[in-house]
């Protein structure tokens, strides 16, 4: 058992349902007790979805438990097949019902006999995989299912499109800013003269999946969702894929260059250098921001980054390489993909933290006292308590990650949005910088972080008075640095002289 106050990734069935309900005309049947069906609430409320969520629970109650659920599950599948005529029905248990160890594969086979549409069981271990892994698997499973079905019927279309084309894999409902990212990626592909063959699973028809091999390559914007499908397509149909997340000007350029390579290897003849140059210098304001005076003031400031692999890695690289910010800690909750995270970020940050325990991250933040955090909603709350601003860069999702205004994280408009996020997180606009250079005179409004618990050291009244003159938002730091200095030198009293000596020594 694990004492948990918060979790970063949801349970497996959420991942499966995100995939199933992203496709067009696919219905999911959840085999689960009452109350496990809050996915419908999340989708309806967070996405402000106008349509009913295509997920029905086949409710497991005490009676069902006693009688066995086979009949009820099959009835509900067949009924839904008749009511809504979906192309596909995906059956999934939850953590709870998966313990029953029923032969769900058999339920599905039985239900298939009386259904017009296809019926499959999402093949996921609910105790080994989390939401992200389950989504990746379910997407791969559905892709594989329809390609194998097509292969049997000889209907898989492998003829490449005349012009370079792409499948964008991994855009899903309830994804972190997926809807806006998708719009930006479509624009990017259009600018690059690349046709979009398919986007999956978002609003795609499962019947069209057999056209996937027509594209010149697959594009995986998020490492957490789509890689398994891309690997299957590479293995079975020799399709190359690009999995560089186009987030930040440097990585976007690298992604575009990789796309050019993949296209040119297949006989294309594209050169995107001029496009990259123009976008970097003129369309995106991020490159210019990094040279501007506003960004100069961020030089060397300390930040902590935490999130999923995709966003935490990309954000750390942006902060370090594009803005000259010192990332003192970067972390991820994607433990299952730890090696990649370490490999990507080892050159960029002082410390790496791989953990699913929010308490551990909160403690690290409290200890490091960064000037800003880029994390999840949880880190935002930690920041609120500590008085440290936090930009939210990763799931778990929250209503604020479904803005109505256009806010992509990817592509060139994404670089602009991220620049605003960074700038506002660090300085809350010009205001705080002015506060700082004017000596923080508006102390009434500054968030003060409580000075840490009483120390063993004795502050003279003069030193205490001097400390109180330090603006609230850095006072805690000055106090701690001074005490650290005093302890190292075995002073048991902190006088004015010790304070200044500490400042001269450690830049407190």
């Amino acid at each position: 058992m694990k004492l948990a106050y918060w979790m970063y990734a949801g349970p497996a069935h959420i991942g499966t349902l995100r995939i199933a309900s992203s496709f067009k005309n696919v219905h999911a049947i959840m085999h689960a007790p009452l109350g496990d069906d809050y996915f419908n609430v999340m989708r309806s409320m967070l996405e402000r979805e106008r349509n009913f969520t295509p997920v029905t629970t086949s409710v497991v109650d005490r009676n069902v438990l006693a009688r066995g659920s086979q009949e009820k599950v099959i009835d509900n599948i067949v009924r839904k097949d008749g009511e809504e005529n979906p192309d596909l029905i995906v059956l999934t248990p939850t953590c709870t019902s998966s313990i029953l160890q029923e032969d769900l594969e058999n339920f599905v086979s039985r239900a298939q006999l009386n259904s017009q549409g296809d019926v499959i069981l999402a093949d996921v271990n609910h105790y080994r995989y989390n939401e992200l892994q389950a989504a990746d698997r379910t997407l791969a499973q559905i892709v594989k299912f329809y390609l194998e079905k097509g292969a049997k019927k000889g209907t898989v279309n492998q003829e490449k499109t005349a012009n370079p084309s792409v499948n964008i894999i991994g855009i899903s409902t309830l994804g972190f800013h997926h809807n806006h990212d998708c719009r930006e990626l479509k624009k990017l592909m259009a600018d690059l003269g690349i046709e979009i063959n398919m986007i999956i699973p978002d609003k795609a028809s499962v019947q069209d999946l057999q056209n996937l091999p027509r594209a010149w390559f697959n594009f995986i914007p998020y490492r957490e969702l789509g890689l398994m499908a891309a690997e299957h397509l590479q293995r079975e149909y020799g399709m190359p894929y690009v999995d560089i997340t186009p987030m930040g000007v440097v990585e976007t350029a690298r992604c575009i260059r990789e796309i050019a390579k993949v296209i040119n290897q297949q006989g294309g003849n594209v050169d995107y250098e001029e496009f990259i140059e123009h976008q970097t210098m003129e369309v995106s304001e991020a490159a210019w921001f990094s040279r501007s005076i506003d960004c100069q003031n961020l030089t060397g400031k300390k930040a902590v980054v935490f999130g999923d692999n995709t966003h935490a890695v990309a954000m750390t690289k942006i902060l370090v390489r594009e803005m000259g910010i010192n990332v003192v800690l970067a972390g991820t909750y994607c433990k299952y993909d730890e090696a990649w995270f370490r490999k990507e970020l080892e050159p960029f940050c002082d410390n790496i933290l791989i953990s699913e325990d929010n308490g551990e991250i909160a403690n690290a933040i409290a200890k490091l006292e960064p000037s800003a955090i880029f994390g999840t909603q949880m880190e935002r709350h930690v920041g609120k308590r500590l008085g440290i601003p936090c930009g939210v860069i990763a799931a778990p999702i929250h209503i604020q990650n479904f803005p109505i205004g256009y806010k992509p994280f990817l592509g060139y408009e994404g670089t602009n949005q991220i620049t605003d996020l960074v700038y506002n997180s660090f300085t809350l606009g010009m205001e705080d910088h002015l506060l700082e250079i004017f000596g923080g005179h508006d102390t009434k409004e500054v968030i003060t972080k409580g000075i840490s618990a009483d120390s063993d050291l004795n502050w003279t009244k003069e030193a205490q008075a001097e400390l109180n003159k330090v603006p609230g938002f850095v006072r805690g730091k000055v106090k701690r640095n001074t005490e650290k200095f005093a302890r190292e030198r075995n002073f048991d009293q902190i006088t004015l002289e010790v304070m200044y000596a500490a400042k001269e020594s450690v830049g407190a």
Partner: protein
Amino acid sequence: MTLAQAPITPELNFECETGNYHTFCPISCVAWLYQKIEDSFFLVIGTKTCGYFLQNAMGVMIFAEPRYAMAELEEGDISAQLNDYNELRRLCEQIKRDRNPSVIVWIGTCTTEIIKMDLEGIAPKLEAEIGIPIVVARANGLDYAFTQGEDTVLASMANRCPKEATTNTEEKEERNGIQKLLNFGKKKEEITATESEYKQHHPLVLFGSLPDPVVTNLTLELKKQGVKIDGWLPAKRYTELPVIEEGYYVAGVNPFLSRTATTLMRRRKCKLIGAPFPIGPDGTRAWIEKICSVLGVETHGLEEREAQIWENLQDYVDLVKGKSVFFMGDNLLEVSLARFLTRCGMKVHEIGIPYMDKRYQKAELDFLAQTCQEMGVTMPTIVEKPDNYNQLQRIKELQPDLVITGMAHANPLEARGISTKWSVEFTFAQIHGFTNARDVLELVTRPLRRNNNLKDLGWNQLVKS
């Protein structure tokens, strides 16, 4: 049951459907119970699915330092490779160390049911070992819906109420937080004077978790009639649970507390006052009248009080009068709300409800039937364990003016031009008693007022039909 009044035979139509409907999990109750019982800690023993629900759908785990957490079952727990007792001890010791609550409430879930974890067996041993009371409640979705989670907790807690009043006055005073509040700052002779405002009657304990201001409010209403409340289950602190002796009268404030009622009657030998629930001026008056009648206290001024409240509601009543409403069924408050809204002049198409204890809700059901008769409207159908798909078909056909529904269906219905109100808001809002009647209508009329405000826009459907 102690029903003083002969029941009117209700001509209500009861149906039962497939139970394929959406509602919150009964473990939701931790969200309000941990706040209500200030020295408690709630430990939900379940899976990632349970934890993610609390975090997302209830949106509450984001707040600073809640006094509840998940005991998240991992593969080793499910496969019984790990020892439940040791695991729970480890977690409870940590909770004791970090928070030191007066009670730890274990919330059992579907998973603990299915793997047959012996929480009731483990709890007493661990309680003895760590020295903190452990209350076990099986708030699982296999047996219960949404608000019934509270019922499982209160039923379990009823067994922990002291059997005899301690003789130590000081301690007693501390025990009764409300009484203390009402007497706050008064000298002893004044308290005696206050005591004399009450009529002589048998002790009365109320059950149901209400926000503190509502507790005060209902306490005051009964005090006006000379009725003194000897305690509330739950109290503000676990250490202040009310004394319950055999023969005490008890009355519930919410329709979903049938298990607690049964426990109080069977295990604690209390006498249940079966009354409509104090929701709406009509319900509040009926509730007070019934309590007074059972306790042998004559009421005074209740009719005028009800009339005056109705007068204050007039602007809102005008908005709802003649409108129709459809309850999809979510929190078991449906019958009481339907009865109040019928009294306001609304037509109720259907009362979906997760679970219907016809005995415990008898007085409310009778009152509903009577209200329908008096208002001259047809009796609504009460659909237990509804089927949401079928309900949506009926809604499409009936085109009600308002659908009271769970969070999953509100936006899609709105997009189709059907006005909705979240049922869950009635669970969390302060709706009991005379004073709060306006708040009920504030919620009910909001979509209607919204429609008025936006009526000139020229659209109300946002999906192609």
